[in-house]
């Protein structure tokens, strides 16, 4: 009878507020080199707060330990395969982090006059050029802070472009397999959503589409490869259909990791698209951000790009705000610059050939896993897989949790919605065969466990610091902040 205890340092760390003790602090300021000012006098006592009730009071070592201990409760790419479908969790090169901390890039102010920010402007111009080249587009804005932000920016441009022709039209077509941000963005841009269904091959049906498109349709929003990991083989044809109706084609480029170097949307009728630099271009997810969602467009849409635009003048790089047709600003300043730096570093490290090679490795890894798993799990659609593959299993959620016991992060669960019990697996190119084999073995072992001992699977995970978390209870009576009892 070997009784275990819950080791405290990484296991029972309390909240910072529970660690606090009055008077403690982890800072030290330089001595004030000017006369102190009485806040009440300077601001009026009514404007001065008395206290920050219950705010943290801990030491520097408390802070470091607290967050170090917390960090040990996370899974991360640095620890192993992170096969979240549609998320492209690839290795985040550390050189990107190093260059993003270059003093001359970290400490510059967005309102510094252009001549004092030529290096920053050059970096952005260079990245715009590279992304245009990769997508086959003519112009790029780097402002959007994430994919969804890029979608909104793009759809606002669709509206502006159509308005310029006299009629913004009513709705935007979105396949049922699309990511939730697509319809949400469309609504924010003031459009209705027209849902379209994909066919038994998991692709869009050009013929069916041709029948539905009319004057009321502003554009179609296609994710390609779609969220089933399937390339929309009819996309060029679909573009022709849309264009014939005066409608535009927007591509959700979140899955560009399947295309870089082997297929350029701008070459086959896509009018505009966004990219997720925090997916395809290896900038770290950071537990949910920051991201960056540049939008690339063909020439005719260029006048509508958000303000401001980088321009090359005799005296060097500068910002141009004089663009009457622009949709305006989608955020303050110019974009998540620090993320852009990382993305350019990624592009430079790979070069054109390297980007293509990465794509091919991503396809190889996904198809390799598909082959290893096909005999044990039911593939959702038989169409060839690109960078990810989607299986289906009634117990997808439980199997996902059980994967944790095997030391892996689960795949994406029950998305896309059109696949009942979806298991969406995207290994990315940076995984080794060893890691993929281990992952496949784990999933196969679980398939067997599910037969012989369903209980074991349904009650997983068993090896984590916290057991299965009750998400229903959390939503029933939300506790969204700590407070003193």
């Amino acid at each position, binding site marked *: 009878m070997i009784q275990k205890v819950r080791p405290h340092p990484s296991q029972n760390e309390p909240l910072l507020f529970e660690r606090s003790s009055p008077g403690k602090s982890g800072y030290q300021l330089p001595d004030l080199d000017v006369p102190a000012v009485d806040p009440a006098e300077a601001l009026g006592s009514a404007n001065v707060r008395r206290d*920050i009730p219950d705010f943290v009071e801990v030491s520097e070592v408390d*802070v470091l330990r607290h967050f170090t201990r917390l960090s040990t409760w*996370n899974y991360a790419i640095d620890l192993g395969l992170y096969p979240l479908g549609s998320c492209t969790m690839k290795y985040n090169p550390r050189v990107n982090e190093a260059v993003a901390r270059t003093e001359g890039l970290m400490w510059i102010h967005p309102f510094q006059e252009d001549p004092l920010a030529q290096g920053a402007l050059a970096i952005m111009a260079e990245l715009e050029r590279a992304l245009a080249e990769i997508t086959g587009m003519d112009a790029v804005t780097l402002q959007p802070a994430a994919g*969804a932000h890029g979608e909104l920016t793009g759809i606002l441009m669709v509206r502006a472009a159509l308005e310029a022709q006299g009629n913004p039209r009513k709705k935007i077509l979105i396949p049922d397999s699309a990511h939730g941000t697509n319809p949400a963005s469309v609504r924010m841009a003031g459009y209705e959503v027209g849902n379209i269904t994909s066919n038994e091959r998991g692709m869009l049906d050009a013929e069916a589409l041709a029948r539905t498109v009319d004057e009321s349709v502003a554009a179609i929003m296609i994710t390609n490869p779609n969220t089933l990991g399937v390339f929309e083989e009819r996309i060029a044809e679909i573009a022709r259909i849309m264009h014939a109706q005066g409608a535009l084609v927007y591509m959700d480029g979140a899955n560009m990791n399947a295309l870089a170097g082997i297929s350029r949307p701008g070459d086959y009728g896509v009018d505009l698209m966004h990219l997720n630099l925090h997916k395809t271009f290896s900038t770290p997810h950071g537990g949910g951000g920051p991201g960056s969602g540049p939008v690339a467009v063909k020439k005719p849409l260029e006048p509508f790009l958000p303000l401001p635009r980088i321009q090359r003048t005799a005296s060097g790089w500068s910002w141009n705000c004089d663009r009457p047709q622009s949709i305006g600003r989608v955020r303050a300043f110019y974009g998540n610059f620090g993320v852009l730096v990382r993305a350019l*570093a990624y592009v430079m490290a790979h070069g054109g050939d390297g980007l293509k090679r990465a794509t091919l490795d991503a396809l190889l890894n996904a198809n390799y896993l598909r082959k290893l798993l096909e005999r044990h799990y039911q593939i959702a659609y038989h169409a060839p897989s690109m960078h990810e593959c989607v299986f289906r299993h009634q117990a997808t959620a439980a199997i996902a949790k059980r994967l944790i016991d095997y030391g892996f992060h689960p795949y994406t669960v029950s998305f896309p919605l059109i696949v009942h019990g979806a298991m969406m697996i995207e290994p990315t190119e940076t995984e080794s065969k060893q890691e993929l084999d281990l992952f496949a073995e784990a999933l196969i072992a679980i398939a067997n466990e599910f037969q012989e001992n369903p209980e074991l699977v349904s009650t997983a995970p068993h090896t*984590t610091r916290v057991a299965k978390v009750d998400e229903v209870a959390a939503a029933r009576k939300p506790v969204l902040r*700590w407070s003193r009892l």
Partner: protein
Amino acid sequence: MLDTVGATHLEDLYAHLPPEVRFHGSLNIPAGKSEYEIIDYFRARGAENANWHANFLGAGVYHHYRPVLADAIASRGEFLTSYTPYQAEISQGTLTAIFEFQTMICQLTGMDVANASMYDGSTAMPEAAMMAMRITGRDAVAVARTVHPEYREVLGTYTRHQGVRVREFEYDAETGQVDLASLEQALDESTAAVVIQSPNFFGVVENAKQIAELAHARGALLVFVFTEAISLGLLEPPRDADIVAGELQSFAIAPSYGGPFAGVLACKEKYVRQIPGRLVGETKDASGHRAFCLTLAAREQHIRREKATSNICTNQALIALMATVFMALYGKRGLRELAEQNLAKAHYLGGKLWRRFKGPYFNEFAAATGVRSPQEINRRLRDVKIVGGLPLDRFYPELKNSMLLCCTEMSSRTDMDGVAEAFGA
């Protein structure tokens, strides 16, 4: 592996794509570079930017000292390379930190609920305005001209196609605060929200209480915006506001030419179901231990799709983590002392120059440049390797010969004297 997938060349893997969608050329991007060359390149670019010993620009982005722990902790691979914490059992680190973040933001702003972060302050504000419209069912927004001009531009872009009428109201030329008369004119039964910023773009502290009363009297909500988070250490929290939208860049986030930053969105309890973005909630695990998870997802796009409160998905988690570390390090006393140092510095320089406005100010103020033009003053400062202030006529044509100057704990007395000198004061 190729054998396993039944291919002979890697190229076979996309042979099924129609020729017209395949890219047959090769990308016009130079061959892959070594770490050494990449670091060299960015060093060189960095050297082309002015990164001098002093910078007096504020206007929404502030030069504050960044405690080394912020980077040390955010560089832990477990935080840096994890995804959004959908799988609670292996994301308790991120979830716990966000829960602490939400709590600290509530404590600082006086709100009941705060989300896990927005892209930045400029996008948080429009989301707050749209939130107010959903809550009130009204379609107009009144915005003070003292709100950051670029934030107001973004509000325009976001709301233009949702049938929202945005009205701006004036500031008092004397105090630099909201002109209450002008505000009253802007208000009517269709007004969903009154949007103000404090300290405002001129660095002047607004009278939120009074403005709240006017707004509430007309059934409108008060959306309170802040761009200088340090001010929360010293100023009375916006208790009278209904929604608070702000920017956390001052909390250990480098200016980084404008991003990535972290936006705040906080509100009163009763509006929680209308708040966009992610929320972390407390719950229990199967063995009864405290645990955290993402919650109230029914508001979000991945569940509600077009009916969601917003389209936001990826936010600024890692930046919010750095801000959390910053708040923890300074803590109750530190935030206060830091804010007081900012106040003292700004008032030292402010005392040497002609200020445009009489209203109380925190660490920014509008200075009248008098004899010399703002551009000329900045040129003189450039010669001594100081980045000067922001010429206000860039955003306010009526404010000729005015410069917005910001002083923080990093502004040395010598450099501030240098600025005064450049003014010829």
